[in-house]
């Protein structure tokens, strides 16, 4: 087990926080399709948004497994959107700032993000380019010593509420593909930066997913994160972290759903006995339990490499793929075991069924994971 006594104590703290301050509001936030921004400030105040960041920037100085503990415990919030928003804040939009940011950028974005005073978003996907990241069309043009950004981004988590976005833009020619892409840090309040729409979704209701438009947004050279033209390669590193933390959160979510369902199967009776006692259901539960345990341990073994700052691209892709598969199996089987209750909107299991489906699409689809594994491991 990669977790120490200190991780266990952290887990107890976060579990306590989640059950007292998040879980009781889940139904309200789901109905509102939003959770209050104050959750970020509160979690910042408690140090949860900077668990593995250096103390120098207001972080807690922990290792990667402390971030894993947070992702796992957020799965108990009863509303997948909250955990996802927090992951975008701490594990997707900001790690590149720590890695490539100038000191000024760190002070301007990373420090307030860790405090929960600035909310971050990450803008990769566009209406015409999702899986095919190298084909993005949002342009940053050099004009009079500035950069002028035009284009649009789609399905952006935290897009409505964010204060700034890590934006992936084309600075070279369209034919250049992956070369000629650059990362920018763009403030939301700049003229020309607009939220076109808040999108309705299948699940993750409490998370705000937006379509954003950039209409000649002007930024200075200081807005460039990392080197001009290196954006695609830097983004590939970011995506590994995104998939890693996404897998950890998703398998923890499966575990929570399983625990709930197991309890239900021991209580709910039909034909004179608990439904979990029918061999067909018992075996289903055993299958889920086994799959979850195996997948979780694989995730941990990959995370140990990530924690050591290795770059296990194939394994991270495999982890996300297998977690996606297990998640779908868990969600579908658990809903079935709940019967009519499982189909009701107000139950946790139906919400889990809707929320969990995202893991096979977000941060790179199952098919994209397979393309990566084929290329990196099989030479195909």
């Amino acid at each position, binding site marked *: 087990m990669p977790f120490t006594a200190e991780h266990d*104590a952290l887990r107890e*703290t976060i579990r306590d926080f989640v059950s007292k301050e998040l879980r009781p509001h889940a139904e309200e936030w789901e109905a509102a399709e939003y959770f209050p921004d104050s959750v970020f400030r509160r979690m910042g105040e408690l*140090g949860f948004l900077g668990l593995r960041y250096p*103390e120098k920037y207001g972080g807690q*100085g922990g290792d990667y497994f402390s971030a894993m503990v947070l992702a796992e415990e957020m799965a108990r919030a009863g509303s997948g959107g909250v955990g996802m928003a927090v992951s975008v804040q701490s594990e997707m939009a900001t790690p590149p700032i720590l890695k490539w940011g100038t000191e000024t950028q760190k002070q301007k974005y990373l420090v307030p993000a860790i405090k929960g005073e600035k909310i971050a978003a990450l803008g990769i996907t566009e209406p015409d380019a999702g899986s095919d990241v190298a084909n993005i069309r949002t342009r940053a043009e050099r004009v009079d010593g500035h950069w002028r950004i035009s284009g649009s981004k789609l399905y952006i988590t935290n897009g409505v509420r964010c204060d700034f976005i890590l934006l992936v833009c084309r600075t070279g020619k369209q034919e250049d593909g992956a070369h000629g892409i650059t990362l920018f840090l763009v403030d939301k309040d700049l003229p020309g930066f607009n939220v076109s729409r808040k999108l309705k979704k299948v699940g993750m209701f409490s998370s705000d997913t937006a379509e954003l438009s950039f209409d000649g947004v002007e930024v200075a050279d200081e807005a460039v994160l990392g080197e001009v033209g290196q954006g695609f390669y830097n983004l590939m590193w970011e995506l590994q972290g995104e998939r890693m933390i996404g897998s950890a959160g998703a398998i923890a979510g499966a575990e929570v759903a399983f625990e709930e369902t197991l309890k239900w199967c021991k209580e709910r009776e039909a034909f004179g006995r608990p439904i979990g006692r029918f061999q067909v259901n018992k075996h289903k539960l055993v299958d889920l339990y086994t799959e979850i345990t195996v997948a979780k341990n694989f995730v941990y073994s990959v995370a140990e490499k990530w924690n050591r700052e290795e770059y296990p691209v194939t394994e991270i892709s495999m982890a996300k793929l297998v977690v996606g598969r297990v998640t779908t199996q868990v969600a579908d089987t658990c809903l079935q075991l709940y019967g009519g209750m499982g189909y009701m909107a107000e139950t946790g299991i139906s919400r889990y069924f809707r929320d969990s489906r995202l893991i096979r699409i977000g941060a790179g689809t199952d098919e994209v994971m397979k393309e990566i594994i084929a290329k990196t491991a099989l030479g195909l």
Partner: protein
Amino acid sequence: MKVVVCVKQIPDPNTTGQLEPSTHFLKRDGVEAVMDPGDESGVEAGLQLVEKHGGDVTVVSMGPERGLDAVRKALAMGAGKGVLISDDALRGSDALTTAKVLAAAIKKDGFDLVITATESTDGYTGIVPQAIAELLDVPAVTFAKSVEYDGATLKVQRQTEAGYDVVEAQLPAVVSVTAGANEPRYPSLKGIMGAKSKPMDRLTAADLGIGDAGGATAGQTITAVEPAPERAAGEIVKDEGEAAKRIAEFLVEKKVI
């Protein structure tokens, strides 16, 4: 100001407690254990006082080895030093023995103020705080819903049925705080990691000069245990224009309002 807070590790109150049939002791093995939520308020009260007036908080706990977790949690919250008194001879101690052990440990290090919860969430005797005060020969101010100190006098709002009394005391003293007295802080990861390197004293009953003190020789024995009586059915007031008045009368009769 030297503040000592007494804490206890108890079976998670969110689980249903069970008694061991032969001894009538609470079953502790194989049950999730946590710091008594009431004690979290005690630690918080202590930390708030030293943050304002300087000094430090020492946490003292009597209990089996895993009581260490409660002490560590208090250290992670910000206490400076921990003391755990663990001894097989203390297993099954009654309230008076517990108070004797805690008082001896508190005296050993010295104190200006001792803070406890009003009662533990597992044993519920509610007499340990007063017994400690008596043994230390200092005033006991109980059921504090707020504790303030102006540098000379301790000012406590003491919860009563009708509201609260304002009670003043000179230090040294013992104060028991109610569970809702404050909002206990969550330990941060930095605090958790820092707790490892904070001083921790491990004591036995003998270290405190307390002899064969366990259940066998305790002044209290549990002779029988019975389930609490079933709650009687409530009274339903049908509203025929008089319901509000009848409910108010009922509440007055029960001294609720």
